[in-house]
């Protein structure tokens, strides 16, 4: 992520996550915005502030061919707690995203 951001510019990057629940999605989102909350790895203390969404959020879903979405994602959409994921992701974006 860090390398891509340096190569293409942070404003040109959107991160799409596929985590299975809100907390895990939130942690990943925090890592690419405010920096790695566990202070491990290359993003510890690095505030990239990138745009970040979960694949089940409407912003991403609306961009995808409905047939492909049906084939690849719809089953997991039924299993996951989408409201919790959206709540968690929105909170992280509101706090740390620099490009909205």
């Amino acid at each position, binding site marked *: 992520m860090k390398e891509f951001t340096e190569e293409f510019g942070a404003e040109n990057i959107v991160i799409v996550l596929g985590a*299975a629940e809100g907390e*895990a999605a939130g942690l990943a989102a925090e890592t690419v915005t405010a920096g790695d909350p566990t202070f491990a790895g290359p993003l510890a203390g690095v505030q990239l502030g990138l745009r970040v969404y979960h694949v089940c959020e409407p912003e991403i879903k609306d961009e995808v061919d409905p047939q492909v979405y049906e*084939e*690849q*994602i719809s*089953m*997991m959409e*039924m*299993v996951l707690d989408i409201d919790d994921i959206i709540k968690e992701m929105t909170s992280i974006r509101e706090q740390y995203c620099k490009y909205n």
Partner: protein
Amino acid sequence: MYSVVKGASYFIAHAPDMVVNNGTTQTTQRKADPNAEYLTQLEKSLRSYEDCVAYLPNQVYIGNMTPEELEGYALPWYEQKALGAQRKGKYGEIMPEDEFIGMMKICDVFDLVKLEAGFSADLKEKLGQHALIDASQLEVFDKPSKEAELRKLIDKEHAEPIYYLGKMVGCIKAAHDFDESLSAHVIFENIVSKASCVLSILHLMDQTDVAKDEIAYVIECSEEACGDMNQRGGGNFAKAAAEIAGLTNATGCDVRGFCAGPTHALLQAASLVKAGLFKYVVVAAGGSTAKLGMNGKDHVKKGMPALEDCVAGFAILVGENDGISPEINTDILGRHTVGTGSSPQAVISSLTAAALEKAGLKLTDVDKYSVEMQNPDITKPAGAGNVPEANYKMIGALAAMRGEIQKAELADFVKKHGMVGWAPTQGHIPSGVPYMGFARQDILEGKISRAMFIGKGSLFLGRMTNLFDGVSFVLQQNSGKGQSEAVSEETVKKLIAQSLKDFAGHLLQE
């Protein structure tokens, strides 16, 4: 004719000292910081043998409780105890660590396991009372080592110490001065795996009416590798374990597929028997020291006991159709292929719905699914969620998408077709196989007629591919035709005579 499952056994060795000294989470932590607070805390979080035996999921693993009974207990299970818990169960046993170290010595044919004198004498007495250990196998305890000799091996010759109750009681020597594949560390892992495999096989043979000398082939499917630097994964745990278990007429080999290994191995065993190559094939695997205390940091942080203190094993006997035992239906095969894709939807469809559809079955036609039966008491506090439940939700969601159930029935589907997880988190151990013993029993008792076994493997961990893997099959009630369908020589002669007669008749007509 399909081959059948004649029996299944399950073994646990309680191994708290190996958690501390051999689990990779701990060994890497010790390398990074030998004074880490975690290591001190961990030692205070270890369970006693009695607590390990009384742990509800462990009693299920060895068959003293059913998965349905376990479901009646709310999490966390580590705060409760099984009433009347026993070391021995219908399917196997939970062995204390000292006796298991003794089994490692019995399984060592290269004099690499060295044990201290007092400890050896204790073990000889204790294992002398074990019903499955032969008196001749106890002779290995008659040549113990002096403490000074053990110290020298550990300090100067890279031997790996063996601890019991925190005290050094022996060591495992390196099997070569330079060869890393034969280092004391690798030999330790492999002897633990072999010993737990041997005990699983011994329990299996004890439960079934098939004699040891009738076993023609053994397939071992753990996640360890034995060999030397010129053939690191050369093998062969299967034959090595068969030797100690007394399966004199068996050969065999190792099958690997990460956590999917056991399911691959069962398919191969079922095929070998169905094809008529062998009458009886044993599929078996021992456990892993590396995975002991894998999630220990989370458990300790949360003030829980270190629950990953079990080296586990299993063995399954596949045999020719006896007209009674449940059949392995090799015509309903789920396969995650190279081209399947990696989305959860693609994976779960390929392993369940796609296979069942070919046989004209729906997802709801399978009574029970045995997936990754990881114990949620262990995985949930470590942030890995409830693994079996997540799998059942996915299968249920697939059923809803296919119109087999209503979306609102998803929770009911999970309850009806799923189970709570009870297996120790040892990779290949929870993968599908823990339910084999119960499935056999449930099918024989007519409680269910069809169970699907799903094995999945994270191949990418080996860095040779980015792919994931999985295979599945259905275990079903015996059609009862096993015996009667067998064609006698006389019938064959009659059939040939009849076709020759028909053929001659056609020639005359022409």
